[in-house]
């Protein structure tokens, strides 16, 4: 068993990559690339399920850890591991992958080889971001995750693919330049890329505070663009509009939000706390701005993009509230958003394939012609709005209540207003698409309700929404020990000591005099 535990994360990283190479090498005949991709993603999903099955709940620190030297100079380690924060995100990526493949089954008809191998590379990059505990390895996967996405948007964009892809790529790539400088600066000061070691150094206060402010800001900036946080969301709508459905499902939010929790707040708690009020304000602006813009969109992909901006901003609010409950809610909401958004994307993709338009006004009265699609869409929309008993409720409620009681009442009230607006745009979307008089477009095409394959994908997602809404403790038990918002004194001192030993040598700003620090032990739980 231990052998599997040791290698499980490596397997999760390598299986999609192997699948990608296999797809690239085998001929593009019939549906062969599709089947290989589906098989690979299913195997990967089963592998990711190993994590929750063997995860020791209630234990803090990383599990399934692997730490072996990779490159000597600079000292880069292949260091991977998961904790409560990242484990379910890995499973979520694993779950969405086969669904993405299935969603592309009909939609992608040309150059399937290129599509599926890049899709699988994207999987590896996403897993890599979630499991890397070495900053350089993390940065590597972070950058790698851009490439397949950009190429696929350019290849399969609906109207103006290359422009959207360029926007997407540059928006994320340019902020990662300061991020790399910041990582290198940390390495130059501390001599390590190891997450736990760095966490210790930044908490110990030996690094100059002035420079740390800029380093933390570089981290935050890169992540805030990726989420996106309010004024940095320029890429989002175009990307949603142009990206193939399978990729839009996997791209949104997760990487940036996770990175904020792990690498911004996790590494720079003091700096994060200093900037938290600003981010809370930006998050509220984002919630309201996204919701208001979603209200007036005429294209459902753009509507989903601004809805995502609104929902992701709510999670940002929870993260920078810096409370334990808020963080648990944030992780939960990321998971829920992934599932719900995935289902809604699938359904909208189905509509677009059948009716060849994404203009909301062209639709109307679909409910009588596609009753099953309407049912599933309504459930998804309600889950997104946050109806009790569905997954969205738990996350939103936890976030809002923790903000109200522990952070700021006015913030919670404004954010709740955004949630209400969310109900307005989602319900009006449902109304315009599925109810009301049948439009000429809906009459002109033969009614084609969801087929068996589509139902087979959507039903598990809907069931998952229900289970997540009814039994959230299944997830919270694992999430809670993994989140360490720095507001809690306890979590600050429970940082694991660096693996190197009890005495650390640090070179203080410029001088060659080593400063001795002995690890303090009072915080070990």
């Amino acid at each position: 068993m231990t052998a599997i535990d040791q290698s499980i994360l490596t397997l999760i990283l390598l299986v999609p990559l192997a699948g990608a190479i296999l797809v690239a090498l085998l001929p593009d005949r019939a549906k062969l690339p599709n089947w290989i991709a589906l098989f690979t993603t299913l195997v990967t999903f089963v592998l990711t399920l190993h994590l929750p099955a063997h995860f020791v709940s209630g234990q803090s620190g990383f599990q399934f850890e692997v730490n072996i030297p990779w490159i000597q100079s600079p000292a880069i380690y292949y260091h991977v591991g998961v904790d409560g924060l990242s484990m379910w995100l890995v499973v979520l990526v694993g779950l969405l992958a086969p669904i993405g493949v299935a969603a592309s089954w009909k939609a992608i008809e040309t150059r399937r080889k290129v599509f599926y191998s890049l899709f699988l590379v994207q999987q590896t990059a996403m897993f890599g971001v979630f499991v890397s505990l070495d900053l350089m390895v993390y940065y590597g996967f972070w950058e790698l995750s851009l490439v397949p996405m950009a190429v696929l948007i350019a290849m399969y964009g609906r109207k103006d693919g290359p422009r959207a892809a360029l926007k997407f790529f540059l928006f994320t790539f340019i902020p990662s330049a300061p991020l790399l400088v910041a990582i290198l600066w940390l390495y130059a000061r501390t001599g390590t890329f190891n997450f736990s070691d760095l966490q210790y150094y930044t908490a110990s206060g030996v690094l100059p505070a002035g420079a740390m402010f800029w380093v933390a800001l570089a981290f935050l900036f890169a992540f805030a663009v990726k989420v996106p946080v309010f004024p940095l969301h320029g890429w989002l709508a175009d990307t949603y509009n142009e990206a193939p459905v399978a990729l839009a499902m996997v791209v949104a939010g997760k990487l940036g939000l996770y990175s904020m929790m792990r690498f911004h707040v996790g590494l720079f708690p003091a700096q994060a706390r200093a900037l938290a009020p600003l981010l809370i304000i930006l998050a509220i602006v984002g919630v309201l701005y996204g919701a208001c813009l979603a209200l007036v969109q005429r294209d459902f992909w753009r509507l989903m993009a601004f809805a995502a901006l609104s929902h992701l901003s709510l999670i940002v609010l929870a993260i920078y509230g810096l409370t334990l409950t808020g963080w648990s809610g944030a992780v939960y909401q990321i998971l829920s958003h992934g599932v719900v958004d995935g289902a809604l994307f699938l359904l909208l993709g189905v509509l677009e394939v059948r009716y060849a338009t994404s203009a909301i006004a062209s639709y109307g009265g679909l409910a009588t012609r596609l009753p099953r699609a309407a049912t599933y869409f309504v459930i998804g929309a309600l889950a997104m709005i946050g109806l009790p008993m569905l997954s969205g409720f738990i996350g939103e409620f936890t976030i809002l209540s923790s903000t109200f009681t522990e952070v700021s009442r006015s913030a919670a009230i404004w954010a709740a207003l955004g949630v209400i607006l969310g109900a307005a745009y989602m319900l009006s979307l449902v109304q315009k698409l599925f109810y009301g008089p049948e439009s000429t477009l809906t009459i002109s095409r033969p009614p084609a309700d969801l087929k068996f394959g589509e139902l087979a994908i959507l039903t598990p997602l809907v069931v998952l929404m229900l289970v997540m809404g009814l039994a959230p403790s299944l997830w919270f038990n694992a999430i809670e020990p993994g989140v360490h918002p720095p507001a809690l004194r306890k979590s600050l001192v429970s940082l694991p000591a660096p693996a190197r030993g009890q005495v650390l040598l640090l070179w203080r700003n410029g001088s060659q005099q080593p400063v001795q620090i002995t690890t303090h032990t009072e915080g070990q739980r």
Partner: protein
Amino acid sequence: MNPVPDIYRILPEVILTLTGVAIMLVDASIPPAWPRRYLGFLAAIGTTIAIWASVWQLSLPEGTGFFGTVETSAFTVFFHVLICGIVLAALLLSLDALPTYSHHQGEFYALIVFGAVGMCLLTSAVELLLVFIALEISSISTYILAGYRKETGRGPEAAIKYFLLGSFATGFLLYGIALIFGATGTTQVYQAARLAPVAQNQPLVLAAMALMLVGILFKVSAAPFHVWTPDVYEGAPTPVVALMSTAPKAAAFALLLRVVYEIFPHLRSVWEPLLWIVAVLSMTVGNLAALRQQNVKRMLAYSAIAHAGYLLAAFAGIGSIGIAAAAFYTAAYAAMNVGVFAVIVLVAGYDEQLSLIGDFRGLIYRSPLLGSLLIFFLISLIGIPFTGGFFGKFYSFSAAVGGGAIALAIIGLLNSGLAAAYYLRLALVTAQRPAEDEPARPMPHVGPAAIAAVALAVLVTLVLGIVPGATLHAAQSAAHTLQVPPQPSEAPGIPLQSGQ
């Protein structure tokens, strides 16, 4: 006494020279109707043997030969292998890319090999006059190769421009060498290095260094000595551009390393800010100009200028860290640049039917293999992790950060963000669906030799990006030999002319 026979010290150069002479003789002696393509294989075999000979030189004790004029060390071997590797890839590429009817094919291959002789000698020469001769050997071959496509107007124009400006720049280098001789009384690198700090006429030493820097920076096409680059790249045949944008640059960077770190380490306070400015200028000018190009080769020419800037950033690094970073970057840049030009040769053909960015639209739909390869190399040029380009930039900028030039690193990384815009524009156009009214273009012909060349480039780019350890180790030992030169007692041939 020196136990190593002198001839071993220049074994790769000898092998390459013999190969080149053999090609010319065979070319002249076989009937005109016979195909000349097989001479290319002869050249490739000779180059492969030369690579082997360079690696074998590692087993020799480090030291100089021929009265202290040539050196073998980890440094020379590193650059020999790199240069011969590039030449090998360029030869393989030319084998498939050169049209079979083209005339003077034998000369073409011979010139490439003779150019390689000059470049190899340039990295191993430790006598400034020999440096000058080596530079001329390599430059003259490159001038002729640049004008090889005589049927278009641009070829000769490129060659003449390159020749005039290049000769002018070489004049600067020669002036610098003369002034060194004036200040120290010697042109042997180690002796000059020992005597330069104690020379009475320090302004003369300073002037010598400045003139030599101008000459070398021209060869690496760093701003503000870069104006020849786009025109020459555009006019020269693409297989030649694959060669001349990498191999002579690698040799010139080796020379630059030798000059600044070995002859003038005591003037660091002077050349470091100078190279800082040149680095920033090169990156910024190169990238800004590349953004506006529509012609793919011109765009890559400006990007080559920017890459010279990234590489020069490594010179801000202290001691062997900077040298190793520069050497590593040279290797990474060579691999991906040869690769990108190789793909362009294969897509556009020798007569360059496709030259604008728009012409590459939908390449991935026409030819998934070439399209994916082009995107791969462009991604490496952007500097995405797990490719050689990433670690090249990484080591270069971390050397700069380590040397205290944080501003340089930030400017460099922002520049690489800027550069991503135009590389990506080409990559995304390649991935874009072809326009409906687009005329059907012929499937590019890809022969086995060209496949081998591209595979070599892909392999090196991936190895440098995923397991850079071995190459970095080689670059570090190269850096070490440059820091600690062999004992001068091994060169008893030249009496020390001190006492000025």
